[in-house]
């Protein structure tokens, strides 16, 4: 475990392999909720929180339940169940503790269960930080940090996109391109600029 490794994870998760613009995870929510900046920010913070927590939980589930009992093939089922239960729990807790917070991002929480970014990061962590059925040194910290960075990447893409789409409201675009099609074209141009971070491998 060293600082360099953390830096690599940060750069690759936020910029080079941006969760939305180059891995296409969480694309549905990205297109649907990026019309205005405020809900976009609320959704992003909810996603970031859930990704970090679920990275932690799935690491424990994989390391202490699935690996010792040789149940690696149950990964998909157990992870999605754990994530769904966790999201439900968070929703209940928030509703009880802080109605204010619940109004800001409570309605987005159920959506996050089927957000592929959450499950995607969990699976990615296992693929990257468990080699031949053994956890690499410091894999827990790497997993959580990667979760955090992916969340940051999601927030970055969401903020950029919502800012652009807010301005587009005032523009005169062709009728057939309104909403979804134009959002994809913009995402594509954003993606082009993010390709610059990977240094154009030919």
């Amino acid at each position, binding site marked *: 475990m060293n600082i360099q490794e953390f830096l690599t994870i940060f750069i690759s998760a936020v910029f080079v392999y941006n969760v939305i*613009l*180059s*891995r*296409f*995870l*969480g*694309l*549905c929510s990205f*297109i649907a909720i990026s019309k205005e900046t405020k809900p976009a920010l609320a959704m992003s913070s909810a996603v970031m929180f859930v990704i970090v927590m679920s990275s932690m939980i799935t690491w424990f589930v994989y390391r202490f339940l699935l690996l010792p009992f040789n149940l690696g*093939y*149950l*990964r*998909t*089922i157990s992870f*999605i*169940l754990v994530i*769904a*239960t966790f999201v439900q729990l968070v929703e209940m807790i928030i509703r009880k503790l802080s109605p204010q917070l619940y109004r800001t991002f409570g309605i987005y929480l159920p959506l996050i*269960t*089927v*957000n*592929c970014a959450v*499950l*995607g990061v969990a*699976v*990615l962590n296992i*693929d990257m930080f468990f080699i031949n059925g053994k956890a690499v040194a410091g894999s827990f910290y790497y997993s959580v940090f990667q979760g955090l960075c992916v969340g940051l990447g999601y927030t970055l893409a969401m903020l950029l996109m919502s800012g652009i789409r807010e301005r587009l409201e005032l523009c005169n675009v*062709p*009728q*057939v*391109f309104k909403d*979804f*099609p*134009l*959002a*994809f*074209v913009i*995402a*594509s*141009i*954003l*993606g*082009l600029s*993010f*390709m610059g971070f990977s240094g154009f491998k*030919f």
Partner: protein
Amino acid sequence: MKDLIKEFAKGIIKENPTFVLALGLCPTLAVSVSVANAMGMGIAATFVLLGSSLIISLIRDFIPDKIRIPCYIVIIATFVTITELCMKAYSPALDRSLGIYVPLIVVNCIVLGRAEAFACKNNLARSFFDGLGMGLGFTLALILISAIREFLGSGQILGHTLVKGFEPVFVFGMPSGALLVIGLLLGLFNLLKDKRV
């Protein structure tokens, strides 16, 4: 019988999951680099869709309403695991190139969407044909996108060169090319819909 054919046919054009309902876009974009990948993903997703529609429509009367979503997810995840294991055993190369997008079929909105909107309200035969039609519509959409991307991005389709001396446009093999292709295709479909009306 006519009714069943209608359930089957609607998924292909009229309610195409990708272009009309805009569901399940993440895997569509990620695996559409080549036609071979797209076919693999299409078949896998169709199998999961078909299996989960069948089981859900069979036990729809026993599932309590309050916990139906977790129940659906467990059923879907079971079929995804079956697919994953089969793919690992019979075509490891395809499994490697699809990567994490195979387990991610679980959170593909088409599968859960059909379970929630159709299979839990309809009988076995109708759910079967609905699942088959939706799966086929998804596969066809994937093949269309991947054919455009593979041709423009590498000048080939399924490894065969179509036009001699065609200079490949590198960006269409990259993520941003995928977003551009689907954006333009959605625009085109909107245009066609406007024309018809």
